[in-house]
């Protein structure tokens, strides 16, 4: 168990090194002279030279890289130009909003995709199989920002079922007491039903837009791996032994078919984290995606770079978790390692 964890951790190290090198390169690729940029338009050459020295831009690239890694280890991602706040602090306060949205979207995607994929495989060639194909092809074709806008128009403007697409909770409700930063969990823990309902209503549309976009790989893989498992000998034996179809499908087939589905979660998270930026923009969701987009508009680069690095580290960590869970679920992988 500990060995499994350690071997998985070791595989993540090259990814993290790669991520840090790439983000360092991105900071040094900034258009023009970063020192002149940080000094502002009216700066004198002396001021620019001083800033260049303060930023360490007069040193050689390897020295700059060492300084960059040192800053990262101290949790220093620089300051935002427009707010003057440290980027790390701003990202940390906004992260729960993004995490809640992304995880909720994942739950919605899994809740739709897995039953759909299983049904499509069990009833291969029927209308539900075709539905599965249409939903998956349409899902990846829908620009997530467009689906979000369409939902906002239909469910907020036309039907008025959903609240205004602005933020995590209605302006007339106060957010729940801060415990985890997840409004749904916090309000449930404090028994604040009004806030729970309010947060859920705000969360529904952005989460569903993201889920539709990202459920395709899950549904396709569930269908494909269920089909493969259902055609294998042990299923035939189980059927021939007179087990009920329910037992055959859920206990025998599904438990084996779910393994490849877990590995596609990595791709699903890549989709979700990217879609997160667009959906947060559409729904004015106060997460790190919206923070980065607003910083981009004002050419404030430190938050954008902090955001890219945070997302990449999160993604590496998520992939690591997926790998680890896979090892727990599938004993064969554990024996190999």
């Amino acid at each position, binding site marked *: 168990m500990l060995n499994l964890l350690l071997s998985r951790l070791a595989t993540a190290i*090259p*990814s*993290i090194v*790669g*991520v840090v*090198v*790439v*983000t360092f390169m*991105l*900071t040094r*690729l*900034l*258009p023009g002279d970063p020192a002149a940029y940080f000094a502002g338009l009216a700066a004198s050459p002396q001021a620019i030279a001083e800033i260049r020295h303060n930023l360490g831009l007069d040193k050689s690239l390897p020295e700059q890289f060492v300084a960059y890694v040192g800053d990262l280890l101290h949790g220093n991602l620089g300051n935002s130009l427009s707010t003057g706040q440290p980027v790390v602090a701003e990202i940390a306060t906004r992260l729960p909003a993004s995490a809640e949205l992304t995880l909720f979207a994942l739950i919605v995607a899994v809740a739709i995709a897995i039953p759909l994929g299983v049904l499509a495989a069990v009833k291969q060639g029927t209308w539900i199989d075709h539905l599965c194909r249409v939903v998956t*092809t*349409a899902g*990846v*074709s*829908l*620009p*997530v*920002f*467009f689906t979000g*806008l*369409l939902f*906002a*128009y239909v469910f*907020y*403007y036309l039907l008025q079922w959903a609240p*205004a*697409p602005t933020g995590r909770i209605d302006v007339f409700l106060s957010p729940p007491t801060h415990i985890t930063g997840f409004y749904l969990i916090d309000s449930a823990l404090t028994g604040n039903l009004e806030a729970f309902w309010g947060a859920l209503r705000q969360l529904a549309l952005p989460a569903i837009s993201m889920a539709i976009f990202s459920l395709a790989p899950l549904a*396709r893989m569930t269908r*494909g791996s269920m089909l493969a498992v259902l055609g294998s000998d042990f299923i035939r034996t189980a059927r021939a032994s007179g087990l009920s179809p329910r037992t055959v499908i859920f206990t025998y087939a599904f438990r084996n078919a779910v393994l490849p589905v877990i590995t596609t979660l990595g791709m699903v*998270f*890549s989709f*979700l*984290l*990217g*879609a997160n*930026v*667009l959906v947060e*923009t*559409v729904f004015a969701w106060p997460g790190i995606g919206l923070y*980065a*987009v607003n910083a*981009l*508009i004002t050419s404030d*680069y430190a938050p*954008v*770079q902090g*955001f*890219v690095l945070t*997302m*990449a580290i999160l*993604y*590496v960590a998520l*992939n690591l978790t997926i790998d680890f869970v896979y090892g727990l679920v599938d004993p064969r992988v554990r024996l190999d390692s």
Partner: protein
Amino acid sequence: MLPLLRHARYVLSENPVTGLAFGLFALFLIAAIFGPVLAPYNPLQSNAAMALKPPSAAHWFGTDQLGRDIFSRVLVATRLDLTIAFASVILAFMLGALSGVAAGYFGGWTDRIVGRLADTIMAFPLFVLAMGIVAALGNEVINIVIATAIINFPLYARVARAEANVRRDAGFVEAARLSGNGETRVLLGHVLPNIMPIMMVQMSLTMGYAILNAAGLSFIGLGVRPPDAEWGIMVAEGANFIQSGEWWIALFPGATLMLAVFCFNLLGDGLRDIIDPRMRT
């Protein structure tokens, strides 16, 4: 050639949706080539008197906040959107196929370097990496092309590597080597042409994603700048009017974008069935 055509006809008759996708593709190509000629209005001409008018006989898709004709803008934008997507797919193909084929054929260090590069790119959520690249390189259309090509690079490199690896010791490669061809010549003249069909499928499969990615980047204000007509930025402009009920500004460019991506995804699936039936799912 003839058997391939017959097979294509068989696939099309089996799957009429692919035929539909080919039809749509032709429409998009016509719009991309002749868009500026066909557009009934000047896509950049504003007209304050006609601002925010819903669809009518004169303006099929309505007008935007500056009174510009949305139908003309959607039509003209086709060229820019498809050019970005085509250019990035071709760039990704050139980078990915060449390095992938070399990695699979030579193995060793080449393989390790290309593999590490692909893994590093895949360690990022792809859209986020594209954002970072465009932000770093500068807010230009060409940088959208580069960013989209970079995030697609691992897909091409991996497929090309796997295919080249299988063929490394194939009979025809041995024969080419024995008749005195240098390694580079064997690689480019014999191995690469043999994996082209699979790379073509890969290209059509990633076209839809490339369009989506480019439109997403311009939606958040990267690359294409107003007043240029581009589907993503038009949806972004329309987003400000959704809450007051002017749906047509965002709907038409968004629906066109969706249709284009849908068309390319179906086309990719169809092409795969024609060229490589083994990969059919």
